[in-house]
């Protein structure tokens, strides 16, 4: 019998529970964030002056008191901009660095003070005297529609089938609406940019950006210099979640302008309040829907409009509202469907990317329709869900005409339903509610299907740079940014696996536009998919050269050269990796390569609303059980079970961390995180004292998180893994629906609870009161 020789495995290869590459530095405080970099002597500090009006003309600005404040070096306004006064990522020219004659939201930057210390700049900025003439303002999305506010960008329509015929056929039709709140990113490290001027027009920037290439282009645009003069450097960010995809550009531009003007290093870091006031957030949505269905709950037709509070400019609102529509079907087949977006302008900060990128709002809307159908028919929403899942003859086409080919939601739901004992626990909940008057419980099991790829097709490309040094150590660089998700770790694991060397032989270096150009934002959950592939490609190029070299030098066939753990096997000979590299170097083999990857198969025609925008889908499901106090609206998540699909995980430990973290972040969005604007258009929840993200004690009291270990991506992704950043963010829709069920119990579940998000204790109690009144009245 042919017995395989046991071969040692490398340490830290793919599919291993490798620790975060910076873990030991995080815990010792030695992981360097931009504000930790020692400043060169003479570094100046910039601080923004923000609009104190929601919508107004600027009549005059008096900087005298600012300029005479201690430590002030100067003031920057739009007049100091040597290039274009615009950082619009949509190239709509609607995103000025500094407002000039008009401000369009409370908190819009108007100027920056440059001073010897940050404290001096901050104190001085508050001394400005600005005369405004107020204009009418609108902060709310429905008010904006009523006031005929424009759309910030062309809307999208997805249409398939014939909704008129669909509704005509449907035995039941219901209509409803829902409000879904926005969300602040609350990355723990706020925005920061640190600019160091170079020779001629050159400038180096350390920027907290998820999109170094765009920051590079925007800084070039604002300075009026070519991109080759601007280098962006990002080692890590203290969280980002989409909040640093476009929003870093303004800070980088201001630091760059000041650095060039004053010819010294300039740092800008807003305080938490300004960061939350002056940078964009998750879009708030209003969803209006009409759904037709048969007596079993099978959906016949859906017509829904998703109106979004976009803020004063387009920013990424186009693709965000598009993605809302792409996910309004979630896992369900709609035979006849029309989905429309309304990206409305408002006098609020321009909303931006945030984990899920509109998808969560679309999915919440879709799940609300399912919930409503279930209450209308007096059934368990899970039954309605299963009835409507994609699958079966002619039931696999999405509203955007992509065929769902990789559907595994049935198996996920079935396994989770069994493992969490859903049916018995739902019966217990119903029984509990019959005898408990004040405390009510709810339970819900909800699915997730999330499309992976940038819907802007050109973003689905990536580059990497791999050097093998003559001592056998490996330098890895790629276009993705590290914001905590573990991207650097995963990509290094891929390279370790390619070369079959231990992970500690590889050093991942700070992301910089000087090493890998024209990169895409680290966003859309795509980091590992894109950069992992690009890095593998670079490694494979080097390996191919090494194989050719070894075959020639040792006179063996190329197929007899193999990369084995920390060793090269050439014919019968085994050479340690570093010894082999030394020989290869001596033989003048090129040991460096630039890798590249572009996602295959995808295409998208927005004007027709047709195509295959997504390479594949990631799936998951969660079941949550809650208790609600019907006297106060307070609640507690008693238990959550999650089963989530990451394909064949590159690193299960990191992926579990992503799933747990996304769940709690999504739960915060749907429960306690509330953005509140006052009548003057001022955001009043702009710091952790007023804006409440989840704490450790808000975790589900029982929290079982599992990966679907059997899942393998049917598409050829990096080591058959799937993206993990965004999909689990939508798992906690089960929490919202479980709270809704507890509320619905006060009306014997006869009335759809229609609980808006975020379900703060106040919204929960007011929903309970409304349901009680409705039950009493009929």
């Amino acid at each position, binding site marked *: 019998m042919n017995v395989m020789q046991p071969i040692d495995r490398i340490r830290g290869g793919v599919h291993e529970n490798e620790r*975060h590459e*910076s*873990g*030991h530095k*995080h*815990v*010792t*405080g*030695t992981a360097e*964030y931009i*504000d930790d970099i020692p400043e060169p002597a003479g570094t100046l500090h910039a601080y923004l002056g923000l609009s104190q009006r929601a919508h107004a003309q600027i009549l005059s600005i008096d900087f005298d008191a600012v300029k005479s404040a201690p430590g002030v070096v100067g003031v920057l306004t739009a007049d100091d901009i040597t290039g274009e006064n615009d950082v619009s990522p949509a190239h709509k020219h609607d995103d000025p660095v500094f407002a000039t004659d008009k401000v369009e939201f409370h908190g819009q930057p108007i100027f920056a003070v440059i001073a010897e210390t940050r*404290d001096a700049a*901050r104190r001085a900025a508050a001394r400005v005297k600005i005369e405004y003439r107020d204009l009418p303002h609108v902060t709310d999305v429905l008010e904006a529609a009523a006031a005929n506010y424009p759309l910030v960008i062309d809307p999208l329509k997805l249409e398939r089938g014939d909704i008129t015929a669909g509704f005509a056929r449907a035995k039941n039709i219901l209509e409803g609406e829902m409000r879904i709140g926005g969300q602040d990113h*609350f*990355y*723990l*490290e*706020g925005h920061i940019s640190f600019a160091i001027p170079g020779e001629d027009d050159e400038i180096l920037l350390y920027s907290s950006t998820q999109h170094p290439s765009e920051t590079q282009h925007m800084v070039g645009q604002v300075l009026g210099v070519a991109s080759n003069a601007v280098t962006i450097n990002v080692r*890590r*960010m*203290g*969280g980002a979640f989409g909040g640093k995809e476009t929003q870093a550009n303004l800070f980088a531009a201001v630091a760059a302008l000041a650095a060039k003007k004053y010819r010294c290093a300039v740092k800008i870091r807003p*305080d*938490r309040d300004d960061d939350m006031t002056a940078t964009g957030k998750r879009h708030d949505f209003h969803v209006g829907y009409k759904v037709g269905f048969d007596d079993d709950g099978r959906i016949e037709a859906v017509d829904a409009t998703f109106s979004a509070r976009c803020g004063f400019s387009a920013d990424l609102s186009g693709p965000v509202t598009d993605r809302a529509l792409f996910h309004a079907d979630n896992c369900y087949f709609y035979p006849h469907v029309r989905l429309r977006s309304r990206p409305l302008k408002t006098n609020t900060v321009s909303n931006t990317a945030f984990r899920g990128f509109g998808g969560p709002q679309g999915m919440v809307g879709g799940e609300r329709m399912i919930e409503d159908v279930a209450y209308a028919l007096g059934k368990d929403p899970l039954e309605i869900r299963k009835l409507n899942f994609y699958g079966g003859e002619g039931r696999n086409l999405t509203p955007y005409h992509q065929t769902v080919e990789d559907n595994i939601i049935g198996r996920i739901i079935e396994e989770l339903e069994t493992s969490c004992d859903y049916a018995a626990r739902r019966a217990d909940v119903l029984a509990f509610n019959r005898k408990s008057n*004040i*405390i009510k419980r709810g339970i819900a099991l909800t699915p997730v299907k999330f499309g992976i790829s940038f819907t802007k097709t050109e973003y689905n490309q990536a580059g990497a740079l791999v050097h093998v040094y003559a001592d056998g150590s490996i330098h890895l660089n790629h276009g993705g940014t590290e914001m*905590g998700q573990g991207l650097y770790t995963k990509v290094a694991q891929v390279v370790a696996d390619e070369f079959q060397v231990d992970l500690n032989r590889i050093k991942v270096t700070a992301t910089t536009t000087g090493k890998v150009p024209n990169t895409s934002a680290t966003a859309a959950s795509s980091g590992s998919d894109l950069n992992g592939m690009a890095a593998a490609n670079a490694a494979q190029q080097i390996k191919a050269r090494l194989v050719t070299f070894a075959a020639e030098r040792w006179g063996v066939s190329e197929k007899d050269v193999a990369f084995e753990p920390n060793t090269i096997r050439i014919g019968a000979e085994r050479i340690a990796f570093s010894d082999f590299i030394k020989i290869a170097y001596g033989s003048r083999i090129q040991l460096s390569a630039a890798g590249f990857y572009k996602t295959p198969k995808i295409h998208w025609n927005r004007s027709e609303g047709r195509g295959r925008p997504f390479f594949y889908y990631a799936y998951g499901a969660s079941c949550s059980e809650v208790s609600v*106090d019907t*006297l106060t*609206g*307070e609640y*507690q998540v008693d238990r959550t079970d999650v089963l989530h699909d990451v394909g064949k995980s590159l690193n299960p430990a990191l992926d*579990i*961390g992503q799933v*747990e*973290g*996304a769940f*709690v*972040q999504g739960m915060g969005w749907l429960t*306690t995180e*509330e953005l*509140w604007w*006052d009548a003057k258009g001022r955001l009043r*929840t702009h710091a*952790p*004292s*007023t804006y*409440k993200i*989840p*704490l*450790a*004690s*808000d*975790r589900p*009291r029982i*929290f079982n998180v599992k990966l679907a270990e059997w899942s393998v991506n049917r598409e050829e992704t990096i080591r058959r893994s799937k993206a993990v950043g965004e999909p689990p963010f939508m798992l906690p829709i089960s929490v919202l629906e479980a709270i809704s069920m507890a509320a619905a119990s006060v009306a014997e579940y006869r009335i759809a609870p229609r609980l808006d998000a975020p379900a*703060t*204790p*106040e919204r929960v*109690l007011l929903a309970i009161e409304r349901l009680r009144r409705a039950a009493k009245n009929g």
Partner: protein
Amino acid sequence: MTVQIRSSIRFLLNHRLVELSAVSAVQTLLDFLRLDRNLRGTKEGCAEGDCGACTVLVGRLLDGRLKYESVNACIRFVGSLDGCHIVTVDSLAVPGGPLHPVQQAMVDTHASQCGFCTPGFVMSLYGLWMENPKPSVTEIEKALQGNLCRCTGYAAIIRAAEAVSVIGDLDRDPLVAERVTIIQKLEGLKDGKRVEMGEGAERFMLPASVDDLADIYEAEPKARIVAGSTDVGLWVTKFMRDISPVVHLSHLDELRRIAVDEAGITFGAGVSYTESFPLISKHFPQLTELWNRIGGQQVRNMGTIGGNIANGSPIGDTPPALIALGASVVLRKGKVQRTVPLESFFIEYGKQDRQPGEFVEAVRIPFLDENARYAVYKITKRLDEDISAVCGAFRLIFDENGKVSDAVIAYGGMAGTPKRADNAEAALIGASWTEITVEAAMEALANDYTPLTDWRASADYRLLVAKNLLRRFYLETQGDEPVRLDRKQAV
């Protein structure tokens, strides 16, 4: 007796003695660490004491005992640290050496993602470990109420906290092993002198004693007394207010004393929430939950009952509860003391019954009558580390016929000050303790309060909840079924 004056402050920073002869009254510990000392392991996340990224440990002596507590460096003034030992994350592991057990546990359990909050979590868990080597999950969560993490969802951090004692030996921890030496060093810094430093907006003082405090404040009634700086800290970091001259209290051991007698407890104005907790929870178990939900652990370690009262917030963490208990405030000006009922101390929004030069010296809380029924309910958007939308406190006494013989009801968040519900009380007193009575009192609350709408809650919700809390109180006296969420321990 003349007071001797020193014009520098001295403290231990990690392993070194630091003496500062120039420091501003508004210099925060965080900026001092990061900008002056280039100790950049400690991070700024919010500069308002809510996120915990800046958590460090501060060791303080009281009666020869040294206790290390987590504090928010962002709102702690350097001037208040005379005689303390400050421990930052930078000092826990020697470069190139082994990680501290707390750090190792965090790495092993994948408890950091972006890492920015991580130093703060490490320090909070270190503080917990020293006090409670084998904490329950609930105790871990309590210690972490003041630490926000946006990445992990906390599960891995809880696992780390549980693992610390498995991999570490507390007795070998430097702060434990070298405790005697450190105590000697800190004792050596005590010289009984008053500290006076800075000029103009930078000026601050550390009185040598409470008598000295009385003298200073009588002479300079416009001075700003600062105890825990959990609110005043924000006046500086958020609003850039000039608060000079500052008079610090936190170093005055005399104000940290607690006296228990037959009739009640007297807390010195400098007693922190944390220091008062054991006696509060022993004698007033109804206050345990409220106390556990004041700020986060760092804020409870810094903040004082006296400061909470003197501050005069319309919400106030403790005043509604203490008003319902009939607490009183001991005020002092010069050598003259007077005692006023707490409820009359609050006159209107921003105004208290405190004369120029008069300060809160102590708070007196009487024990409950045996036949009194007492409860406090705090309602917030988020369970922990959140300011009340409404806080309701109820103390009722029943006669032998089941009638209400006395009722004291106070709410926070319903008016410009913590305020009693006169109409509701009137509806109860003398009436039978029945649902009908309670509903009448609930309706009467509408005449007691005209709450505001703000980001914490709408006026409608506030009034509705205020009424429902009275119903909750009633239902709890009936004891038929659970009327509050069972805050389960996580597993």
